[in-house]
């Protein structure tokens, strides 16, 4: 079959950064073509060029066998190329319906927007994707990220896309939503839509992709049918070296818990939460997005007030009223949403890294030692392999994964007693992820109590010494040692009560 889309010799530079070097890429109808590579390899840049958000410096794009100059996102959509971006582009205050049709409204003869017709069309669209469209009149901000993304896919279909590009779609989705996305992708394939799929989760590639293109430092270093290649080969091509992935569970936890949570309830968020945290352990929180894990972490961090319950920290009952206070007492929290909660976009990389530790690198009078600040920045850029032209580079110019590494650096520098990490490796490539996992493990080894919240089962399985699973605000399972299996975690996450761990105080109270 002939390609719908073909890129030949694409080149792109940003100032001094050579982001794409002679890139060739093609896509067939009904095919899922995966694009993988380390953070900053140039994946997003390539798809931004294909979708008209950027224009290439050199090279040609053929669409339906004819050379095209895409030029603008509008043009790309008009000719049938739609994109679901890494950072979802939504209108928060407008309804789902408007999000779908804005820019391409269905109009009445008078030129007014034909809401009824739009609604009819949207409903039938969602139904064809087998999704109950009860939410289409709600403002977009009220939807979960998963539903927001579905709305954006529906939007692509309204534009009758022949090519749909997904840039790390599953990074913000729950397992359940991911499954639904895969079903939809399957349906799109049947409709002969060509799909470009970017992801750092290689297991997904093997599930849904037909072909995979591997990029490194702006170059294509391999293109294979998925059947002809295996995981370690892909990683080797991406990183230019082999990867050690095993992490040993540490389990060397302290005797006495550093933190005990009793009876904690916040209506509508979580109910009757009990657990202990020990110094030196890695405690995993698993469950679906929205199951209350983030709310609990934010409560410990002083951002949410519980209705009742008790938090005992280092032998004292505490109730922090602000993150400032929590941090002063040695509790740190890496938030899940890097764009809104994590980064100062228009400020420099070094600012972003040092902002949480200014106290340590300044004099008693509050004067910052510039040299120490620079050193700190340099150290983390090296340790986390952050790809940034310089420490002064503004964070918005970094690739998504590198931005996430900056957020991580900001919290790794804090040296807390309890470190809570909420989706710490979202959007980070496999090699860096593995390095970050090792860093997290070594922090625990130093005696820090690490709480890790992750929607990625493999991450929890790999790191956690103990796992608490939540479902709709309740703890539905606590697992240790060989009980930490994906089967157990999934069952508890879907609401099955599985509190059978021995010797835990939680058990008696909850059963």
């Amino acid at each position, binding site marked *: 079959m002939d390609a719908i889309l073909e890129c030949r010799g694409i080149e792109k530079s940003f100032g001094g950064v050579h982001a794409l070097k002679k890139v060739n890429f093609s896509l067939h109808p009904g095919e899922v073509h995966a694009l993988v590579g380390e953070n900053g390899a140039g994946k997003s840049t390539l798809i931004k060029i294909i979708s008209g958000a950027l224009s290439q410096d050199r090279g040609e794009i053929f669409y339906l066998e004819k050379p095209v100059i895409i030029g603008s996102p509008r043009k790309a959509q008009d000719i049938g190329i739609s994109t679901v971006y890494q950072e979802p582009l939504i209108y928060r205050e407008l309804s789902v319906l408007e999000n779908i049709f804005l820019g391409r409204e269905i109009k009445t003869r008078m030129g007014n927007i034909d809401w009824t017709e739009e609604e009819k069309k949207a409903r039938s669209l969602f139904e064809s994707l087998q999704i109950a469209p009860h939410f289409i009149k709600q403002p977009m901000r009220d939807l979960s990220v998963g539903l927001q993304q579905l709305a954006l896919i529906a939007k692509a279909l309204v534009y009758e896309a022949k090519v749909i590009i997904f840039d790390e779609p599953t990074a913000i989705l729950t397992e359940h939503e991911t499954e639904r996305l895969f079903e939809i992708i399957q349906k799109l394939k049947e409709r002969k839509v060509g799909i470009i799929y970017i992801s750092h989760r290689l297991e997904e590639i093997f599930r849904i992709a037909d072909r995979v293109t591997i990029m490194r430092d702006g170059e294509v270093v391999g293109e294979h049918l998925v059947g002809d290649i295996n995981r370690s080969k892909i990683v080797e091509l991406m990183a230019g070296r082999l990867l050690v992935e095993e992490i040993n569970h540490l389990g060397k936890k302290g005797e006495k818990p550093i933190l005990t949570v009793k009876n904690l309830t916040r209506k509508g968020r979580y109910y009757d939460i009990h657990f202990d945290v020990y110094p030196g352990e890695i405690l995993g929180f698993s469950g679906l997005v929205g199951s209350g894990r983030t709310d609990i972490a934010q409560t410990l961090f002083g951002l949410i007030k519980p209705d009742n319950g008790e938090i005992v920290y280092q032998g004292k009952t505490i109730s922090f009223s602000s993150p400032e206070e929590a941090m002063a007492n040695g509790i740190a929290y890496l938030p899940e949403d890097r764009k809104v909660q994590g980064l100062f976009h228009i400020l420099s990389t070094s600012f972003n890294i040092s*902002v949480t530790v200014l106290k340590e690198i300044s004099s008693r009078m509050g004067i910052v030692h510039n040299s120490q600040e620079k050193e700190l920045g340099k150290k983390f850029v090296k340790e986390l392999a952050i790809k940034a032209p310089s420490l002064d580079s503004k964070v918005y110019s970094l690739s998504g994964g590198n931005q996430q590494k900056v957020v991580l650096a900001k919290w790794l520098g804090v040296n807390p007693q309890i470190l809570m990490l909420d989706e710490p490796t979202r959007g980070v490539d496999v090699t860096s992820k593995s390095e970050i996992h090792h860093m997290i493990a070594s922090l625990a080894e130093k005696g820090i109590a690490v709480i890790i919240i992750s929607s990625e089962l493999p991450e929890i399985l790999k790191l956690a010494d103990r796992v608490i699973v939540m479902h709709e605000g309740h703890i539905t399972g606590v697992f240790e040692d060989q009980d930490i299996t994906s089967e157990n975690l999934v069952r508890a996450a879907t609401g099955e009560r599985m509190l059978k761990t021995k010797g835990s105080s939680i058990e008696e109270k909850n059963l």
Partner: protein
Amino acid sequence: MKNIGSHIVENRVLFLLVLFLILFGVFAFSVKGFFTYYNLTNMTQYGVELGLLALAEMLVILSGGAGIDLSVGSMLTIVAMIIGVLIGRAGFNPSLAILIGLISGSAMGYANGFLVAYPKIPPFIVTLASLYVYKSLAMIISVDPRFGPNPMPVSNFPETFYFIGQHRIGGLPFQVLFIFIPVVLILMFLMNRTVLGRHLYGVGSNETAAIFSGINVKKIRVIVYTLSGLLSALAGWVITSRIASARPDIGTGYELQAITIAVLGGVSIKGGEGTAGGVVLSIAIITMLYNGMQLAGIHQIWQLGSLGLVLVGSVLLNQILYNRRKF
């Protein structure tokens, strides 16, 4: 790869510096009496009051959250009246009166900051309300019951009071040397070298991320508006001393000029972006422009007009050059 030209269009401060030099050159060659030691030193005094207000505006806008302080002109006025009435009518010791003035200015700024930070009322609304309130209070204070119910200026000050606004050292006005320059240096140090400065930029560029980073956002907001009150109060003191009179309408219309100068200086209205250096250059440009035009015999109202022209023209030029360079 990067030449000087592209640096200039990318860096607002450099751009302003070039603009300053060009204007300076033009005036030096074409306006008689401009390029004399006396004029060059003398004119600096006219930039002090507006300059202090612009710096106040810079801090507030920088702190983000749609930060703006419409009440700077009113705070200037009321502090001028407080000082005037205390010295001229109540016979206070000038130092004490000035101290009371500065404290009340800070307190009024604090009130603004409190309303912005705690009940989270939009800064525009808060400071618009306080613009009315402080102005009205200034008029009420200015009434001298001995001479009927109308607002009255105060102008009987002891000789010592004029020191700050009317003396010079080596030709340079006292208020420039001992108020404006120190204020600028302190602010630069504060913004670039201290934890408080970092926090200010952090809050301005992303408030939520600042909260999650353990920055006390409310405290920063309160500090910033309080400083704005203090700077306005300083300006109120200086202007009273310079013109030897405290008038209840003295600061009217200053707020928008101060915002204009801050914005010309490269302070982004979205917060988190801007430098004291840029604002100082912007003050220098405007002061020189006013002076040059006055010497050239152009009517005063055109000072305002030219301020607008420079503002729009320079930013537009900057944008055009920037875009040109890209393609």
